[in-house]
């Protein structure tokens, strides 16, 4: 079908105007809304110092024991050797070993217990929820519908789905809340031989982390605590000598994932501008289509002498 010059210009204009408006509206929202995410009153967490971790994996065994999970031996059937967090592994020690021989580092991965957890924001039924007092993000079987949104929304890729099983669970570190109730510490922190991971109130851990940075200038990467503001702040804090993103801790900025999503969502619907434009565009399409149909009906009537039925 031949496209006339007029039609081309018209189409471009019709499509381009909403896009231009969207860009204009969106541009106004590029500046993050720095909403203060409240820190729970009794927020507890972990402080992991990768620079003193020796990679003994005692925390891995202790975690499995504390949570009564069988060791993940799916690797060689002899060792508890998971390759990543999974349905049996809530806590794992990984190794960053650069090819060029620059310093290597271990990293302990578990739930970060974000101040504004993306998993809870993504969960349609609040199966994942943040405790208002301790700030521990935990999962409730009764609320879960198995949609696995949490596994996708988490920027740290922490919640894991139990793919095998008739009544699958979502597994993640819950800071051993069952042990905290009994006055015990999380399993991983009870066995660490070097004190690389410690448990405590978030404020105390944060000041301890800053104390370490202050006492050892130049030791820590960027001299900052990962989790102080990252992703809106997390309750599990990290210190390391190597870039955090090399350890699987992405640079997310101070805005949490749910906050960012919410900001874009609000902009899209601001003044109802984009829906209105979409409506106009749809009307145009329908009108053009109707016009074509009328033309065809007219042609047929001329040919056959019969009036179109519709």
């Amino acid at each position, binding site marked *: 079908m031949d496209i006339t010059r007029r039609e081309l210009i018209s189409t471009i204009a019709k499509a381009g105007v909403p896009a231009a408006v969207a860009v204009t509206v969106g541009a106004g929202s590029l500046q993050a809304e720095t909403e203060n995410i409240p820190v729970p009153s009794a927020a507890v967490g972990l402080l992991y110092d990768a620079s003193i971790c020796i*990679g003994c994996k005692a925390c891995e065994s202790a975690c499995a024991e504390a949570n009564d999970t069988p060791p993940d*031996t799916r690797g060689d059937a*002899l*060792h508890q050797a998971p390759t990543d967090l999974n349905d049996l592994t809530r806590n794992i020690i*990984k*190794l960053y070993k650069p090819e060029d021989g620059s310093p290597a580092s271990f990293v302990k991965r578990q739930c970060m217990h974000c101040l504004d957890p993306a998993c809870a924001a993504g969960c349609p039924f609040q199966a994942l929820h943040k405790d208002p007092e301790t700030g521990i993000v935990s999962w409730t079987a009764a609320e879960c519908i198995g949609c696995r949104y949490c596994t996708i929304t988490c920027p740290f890729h922490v919640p894991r789905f139990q793919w095998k099983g008739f009544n699958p669970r979502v597994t993640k570190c819950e800071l051993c809340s069952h042990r905290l109730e009994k006055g015990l510490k999380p399993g991983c922190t009870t066995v660490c031989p070097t004190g690389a991971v410690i448990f405590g109130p978030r404020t105390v851990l944060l000041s301890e982390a800053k104390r370490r940075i202050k006492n050892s200038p130049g030791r820590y990467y960027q001299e900052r605590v990962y989790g102080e503001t990252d992703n809106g702040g997390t309750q599990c804090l990290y210190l390391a000598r190597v870039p955090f993103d090399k350890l699987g801790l992405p640079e997310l900025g101070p805005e949490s994932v749910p906050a960012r999503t919410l900001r874009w969502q609000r902009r899209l619907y601001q003044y109802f501008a984009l829906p209105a434009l979409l409506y106009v565009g749809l009307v145009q399409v329908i009108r053009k289509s109707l016009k074509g149909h009328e033309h065809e009906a007219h042609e047929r009537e001329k*040919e*056959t*002498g*019969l009036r179109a039925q519709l």
Partner: protein
Amino acid sequence: MRRTHALILLTNWRRATLGFVLSSSRLPTQVHEGISDYDSRGNAVRRKALMSKQPTIAEHLKASGVSRRSFLQLCSVLMATAPLGLALTSKGSVQLVAQAIGKTKRPSVIWLHFQDCTGCTETLLRTSAPDVAHLILDVISLDYHETLMAASGAQAEAALRSAIADNAGKYVLVVEGAIPTRDDGVYMQMGGRPAVQVVREVAAQAAAVIAIGSCASWGGVPSADPNPTGAVGVDSVVSGKPIVNLPGCPPNPYNLLALVLEYVTMGRLPEMDEFSRPKFAYERVIHENCPRRAHFDAGRYAAAFGDEGHRKGWCLYKLGCKGPITHAACSTRHFNEIPGVWPIGIGAPCVGCTEKGVVWRMGTFETVPIHLATPPDTYPPIYSGAGGIKVGAAALVGAVAGAVGGATWVASQRFPSSAEAGVARVAVDRAHAEKLKASSGKQTDKPTDKKED
């Protein structure tokens, strides 16, 4: 005097006679009571002597001329070599241990042999710190032991009877060897009586029964298939008495020593597991403390006897080592006080001799499951990836997509194209119009006219 006795016993223990042992053990009592003569069988005199007043270990040592210093040395050796977890040796200082032992009366021990190889006795005789002389002369009163006595026949029988009568209800019975039960126990006779009858009689008067070795614990080698004699352990034929099992083939003699000392000084048996094995020696599996554990965690295994890994002392798991399922303290307390002298230490896989369901039940080279797996010394990378796409899966998805696409194309060919459809529709309409025109001129006039307009 004690030194001389000990020397003779150690250098020439096979010739040590019952009379020798008994006279040594009775020595302080005799000194106390002033009894100097006794008949060759010694029954009447000894009974009178022992029942009159039993000396404590401290009194016995003093009477024997053993210095306080030597006794403290013995106690420090005990503290150093006895297993962990004992109430006795976990006392703070040597003095406290010496105090606890010193005020204890030497326990009377009766040792019976049944279907055995005497390996358990042999291993006890090879203990040198404290040596067997210390043990049977100073710490316990070994009143009947068939290997260590010269008496035989009626004399031995009489010795057993008097040993029972002297300390009825107070002695410790140590049983070595399995007890045959098939055909009313005819496969082993002692003095004309079946073994099962003997063990029941002696156990009836005992304060506690210690089953030493795997045979006495559950049957051991004699009970291996097809078990022609119906061999069983002590706890299958004796009831109503506290029974402690010290399985092992042979067991470490320190376990017996520690058990006896714990019992006589603390007055109670140590904590035991479900198979009546004292936890201080049998709570953990060999694998947990194995000197070759690092090789296991690193994935370095000997694959065949004499290969490179075997010669380098790598893990013996793949050669059938039963360490991961065998509860024993062998990996921390080696034999004969020589470091490295134990099966795995000399390159022989553990056969699981302390476990009823393992030794002589499982294949020697059969590998065992790891019940409580622990992390290896390798690490996963930071980004493990979400798993690649497998060729089979890609092929399957491609096949399905191809089938759907192909079916769609074939189906679409069965429908006329839009141009053809338009032509057909116009043709139908035209035919219809002509038909209407033919049937009724008036009725068809209108559209025709309109068309012409």
